[in-house]
């Protein structure tokens, strides 16, 4: 576990120092929210019905920028080799990176939330805690898959293009669940009767892909 903290701490620290990914990600998310306002009448009731969808599309697209950086950051000066040669296990490296990316994504999302709430006239305080739960579960799904795929694509040509190409189809069940749950929380303020299976699906997705990533990451790192 010591390695997990060391990696997470280093990643978080160096990102906060350069703010490269986080600035790009926040601005991108805001641009997406702006563009959506062209496509839909922002304050109409129908828009509220798809609010969860809009929000998660913005998060997923903006998140790819942060996830791409998580392993790409180790490329300069061949730091990845130095880290893999050190005595930490593959799963520690994965968890550390995932934890740092997860926190950074949460920061981006928490910045976007109030902006979204103002621009689209959505009340977020009505169901804040359940919303936070969905946010955490959905973001972890995005992180677990995203960091694994970032590790897969880190050494290849077209890295920036490959990650979204692989990530979004694979992520679709988690995105659907997050969108449905967020929408019903934003409209009704509570989980609806049909939401239980979605919540279970999201938790299951998180568990399955975290476990797979932990089990397989060592193969990806040591060729």
């Amino acid at each position, binding site marked *: 576990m*010591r*390695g997990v903290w*060391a*990696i997470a701490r*280093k990643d978080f*620290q*160096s990102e906060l*120092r*350069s703010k490269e990914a986080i600035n790009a990600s926040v601005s991108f998310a805001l641009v997406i929210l702006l563009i959506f306002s062209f496509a839909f009448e922002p304050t109409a009731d129908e828009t509220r019905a798809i609010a969860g969808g809009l929000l998660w599309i913005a998060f997923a697209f903006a998140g790819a920028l942060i996830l791409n950086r998580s392993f790409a950051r180790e490329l*300069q*000066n*061949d*730091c990845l*080799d*130095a*880290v*893999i*040669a*050190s*005595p*930490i*296990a593959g799963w520690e490296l994965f968890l550390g990176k995932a934890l740092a990316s997860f926190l950074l994504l949460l920061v981006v999302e928490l910045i976007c939330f109030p902006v979204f709430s103002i621009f689209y006239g959505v009340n977020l305080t009505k169901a804040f805690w359940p919303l936070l739960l969905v946010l955490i579960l959905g973001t972890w799904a995005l992180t677990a898959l995203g960091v694994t795929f970032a590790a897969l694509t880190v050494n290849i040509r077209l890295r920036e293009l490959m990650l979204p190409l692989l990530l979004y189809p694979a992520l679709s069940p988690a995105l659907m669940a997050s969108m449905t749950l967020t929408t019903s929380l934003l409209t009704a303020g509570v989980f609806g009767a049909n939401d239980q299976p979605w919540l279970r699906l999201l938790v299951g997705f998180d568990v399955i892909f975290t476990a797979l990533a932990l089990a397989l990451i060592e193969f990806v790192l*040591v*060729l």
Partner: protein
Amino acid sequence: MSPASEAVLASDVWKFHGDFPALRGVSLRTERGTCLALLGRNGAGKTTLLRILAGLSAPSRGDVRILGTAPRLPVTRRRAGYLGHGIGIYDELTARENLLHFARLYGVENKEAAASKWLERVDLKRVEDGRVREFSRGMRQRLAIARAFVHEPDVLLLDEPFTSLDDRAIHLLQNLLREAFARGCTAVLSTHQLREALELATNVALLDRGKLKFAGPRTQAMLDLPPSIYFETETEG
């Protein structure tokens, strides 16, 4: 301490890139406290072999032991130091943070003391809080050396350590290595800089197209005329 007397033991190591054999049945053994210079042309398999010894890559066939244990085991990696082609330090962090990070990864007992000690040794103490991004080339290289030594490894695996170094850093590295050998540390280093390497080496191994062409103690003749090793061994083969 494991009972094995070899620091590095490779038995019949093969590595394939697709169908291409980058290493073809390489067997090596290095006693503790010695320094093995790994020579060979570009593409002879030096880097591949060192990456396998460092646990960065798995051999396709054959077995590797470092200090008696498999390279990929955390126990082994804790006692090995690796310096590859890249310098392996982070530009956004300060010199001190870099060393602390790696000390943390290696589970060094007293991180702060270790970082201070090695910053002192490579003469970067006065810039310890400067970002590496702002460092000159020579300073970065010295920091990289400190990074490889920060956990006091028993086995050092150095890939072309002298190639990108300036004179000052070469001198520093040679001194640090001599000190390390004195306390029983073993080193395997691949190199093109024959003179610098041969001054340090106690043993020499020559790789050619993935095969071990020659392995033996370094002789005075090699030191007198470094390139002669290529001719000598080629006629033998």
